[in-house]
């Protein structure tokens, strides 16, 4: 399955020998274009319910993009990504309520702290691989679950925990340029696009090549002069950063977060959907985000019982895992490639 993924990026590499700049720029431009069409379409077509669901979905897809890089590029599994989303959300709420800075500052703080936390726990884990790493990160997620259910998220109160026990709960203000639901959705889409572009650039440029080498084998990478530790750590930090940003964006959507929504099982679920969405194409993250929030919203909207929804989810998860090794995104890109070949074939004839 890993082998199947590599060819998708390889043609671009081989072309990059002749005309370098357009090849990096074109896929990035494509991301911006696709996201623009997606966000405008959703903004125009959906009502308040769908707008809110899609805002969460896009915000979470930002955290998936970090997971996808770890897994798709390096073969590393992190089962604490949702906990890092929680860390980012906590910090953003804490800073936001304490100092009332512009939203962007709280968000950045959330991202940076989540990146640091990801890194601190990532470094000892750098020696581990495969299931062992996965389980260590799952233990982290379990620890976070216990802590956050005792602490809760800050809501404008005093003290380190910032809990408003006396007065009503305060809401985190949205960015001043995007206070309305539609504006905030577009804002989140813009942030996500930025994240996707940064990640895609990483894949196409030097870090991506280093990651690919590390994946081939660490001895190979070391022999080629790649600093394995730095590049691995950088991947962890990047992944944590985007998780943190996603947490801040989620906090901005509702105005606050709830500790009970950050259980270890959620992190497990997030990873499962990352695979289902597809971790080798940038839009796999978007698909995973939509699966995580928009599909349950659809089932809720259809009035399907919550437990039945969970059951449907389970069945769909297994089906996707068993039938689509590169995820839904992989299938879509294969389809696009086939259609493209069909057209070019016709032109040639």
């Amino acid at each position, binding site marked *: 399955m890993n082998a199947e993924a590599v060819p998708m990026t390889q043609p671009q590499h081989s072309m990059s020998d002749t005309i370098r700049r357009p090849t990096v720029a074109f896929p990035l431009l494509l991301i911006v274009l696709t996201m623009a069409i997606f966000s405008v379409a959703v903004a125009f077509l959906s*009502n*308040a*319910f769908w*707008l*809110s*669901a899609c805002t*969460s979905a896009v915000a979470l897809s930002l955290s998936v993009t970090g997971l996808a890089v770890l897994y798709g590029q390096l073969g590393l599994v992190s089962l604490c990504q949702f906990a890092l989303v929680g860390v980012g959300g906590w910090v953003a709420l804490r800073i936001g309520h304490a100092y009332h800075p512009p939203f962007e500052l709280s968000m950045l703080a959330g991202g940076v702290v989540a990146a640091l936390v990801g890194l601190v726990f990532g470094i000892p884990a750098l020696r581990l691989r495969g299931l062992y790493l996965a389980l260590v990160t799952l233990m982290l997620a379990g620890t976070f*679950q*216990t802590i956050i*259910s*005792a*602490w*809760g998220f800050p*809501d404008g109160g005093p003290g380190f*925990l910032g*809990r408003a*026990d006396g*007065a*009503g*709960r305060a*809401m985190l203000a949205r960015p001043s340029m995007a206070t309305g*639901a539609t504006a905030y959705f577009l804002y989140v889409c813009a942030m996500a696009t930025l994240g996707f572009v940064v990640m895609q650039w990483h894949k196409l440029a030097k870090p991506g090549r280093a990651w690919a080498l590390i994946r081939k084998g660490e001895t190979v990478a070391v022999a080629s002069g790649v600093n394995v530790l730095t590049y691995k750590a950088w991947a962890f930090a990047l992944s944590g950063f985007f998780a943190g940003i996603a947490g801040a964006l*989620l906090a901005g*959507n*509702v*105005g*606050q*977060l*709830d*500790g*009970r*929504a950050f259980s270890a099982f959620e992190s497990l679920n997030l990873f499962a959907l990352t695979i289902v969405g597809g971790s080798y194409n940038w839009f796999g993250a978007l698909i995973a985000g939509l699966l995580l*929030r928009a599909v*349950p*919203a659809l089932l*809720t*909207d259809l009035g399907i*019982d*919550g*437990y039945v*929804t*969970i059951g449907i989810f389970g069945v769909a998860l297994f089906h996707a895992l068993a039938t689509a090794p590169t995820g839904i995104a992989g299938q879509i890109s294969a389809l696009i490639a086939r259609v493209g070949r069909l057209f070019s074939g016709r032109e040639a004839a």
Partner: protein
Amino acid sequence: MLKILKVMAASLTLGLLSALSAHAAVSCGDNSGKPATGEPIIIGAITGKTGPDDFSNSTKSALAYFNCLNANGGIKGRPVKYLVEDDQWNPETAAQLAAKLVNDQKAVLMVGNSSYVECGANAEFYKKAGIEVIAGVGVPRECFFAQNYAPTNAGPRVSMLGAMGYALDKLNAKSVACIGPNIPNVGTWSCDGVVSLAKEKGFKAETILMDPGSADATSIILKAAASKPDVIVLGMSKGVAVPLLTAAEEQGLNQTITFLSAASAYDLSVPATIGPAWDGKFFVNMEFNDLQATTPDNQNWLAVMDKYGQKSDPRDTFAQAGYLAARIAEKALMTLDPKNITRETVSAAVRQVKGFQSDIFCAPWYFGDGQPRHNANSSTRMAVSEGGKWKVVSDCAPSPDPELKDVRAFEATMK
């Protein structure tokens, strides 16, 4: 033997009574029996159905009442269209659903909401949207400290202190251990109430907070018992209260310490689940009247459930809350001109509600216009587990919660 016979006779009469009352006339709307056909009035509700506990009984009961209302003339000819959504115990989902009901469906009022997470997530949104909520069951503090949110129930803290008051007055408790969940604004809030009452009245109180996700109930019980309290009060949901009681029974503590609980453990299944070892040893606070009370409004509730609800809908305290919320909404809506029912007029009418009488409440319910918070239900009863059932052991008594000072002061101005 004689005792068994007595119990049997009593339950037989009770059974007969309820069988008779099932045929009692149902009262709702204008009792005309004519279905309402006008333009529907949209009323929304958010409930926590899927998750650690099922809170949807409140909205099921409210739905039964609205069905009854619609079959009997509706609101001056206009039927109520009642939209219920399940927040799945997730605040994010709760916020999405609030946007759906209020912005997309254009609900004019929310009735019967009962959720663990919804108040915190949506109270501000409701205030901004100018919509009022007559909630069924509120749990965390946010439900009782919001401007547009008025629950019909008393809340865990008021209820727990109601139980504490009973322990002080009737059980002569001199020391207490309070066990609450370590969830901010729920467990700490309730147990803080016990501690501040302890300061006021001069008894010994200890607080033990537990992670409801923890598997080990025995250690919590041992810790609570270590300070040798006269009574232990629980502020846990029934799902956690039952294992705590089981662990206490295992340690034989049911013979030495009396256990009490806030209304969260008042569920018909609990006495049978915990078994005969707790007969007369486990007291629970009731936010509403006895579920089998033969008083007129309670009987009307049961009759409405029989005729307009599903057979499987539980007849529990949550359901009473939903029924009351629906009736209060009806009362408010009936004051309006049916041609002019908008969110603004409905909100204004709801704010004016006062002196709402029902024998399910201890005292008349009011909204409290202009108040920053709402906690109209603050007098409660007590029941004890006996023979697999709850037996009511006290009349209505005001909860001694020190935090209710503002509410009591407002009530004094109303008189």
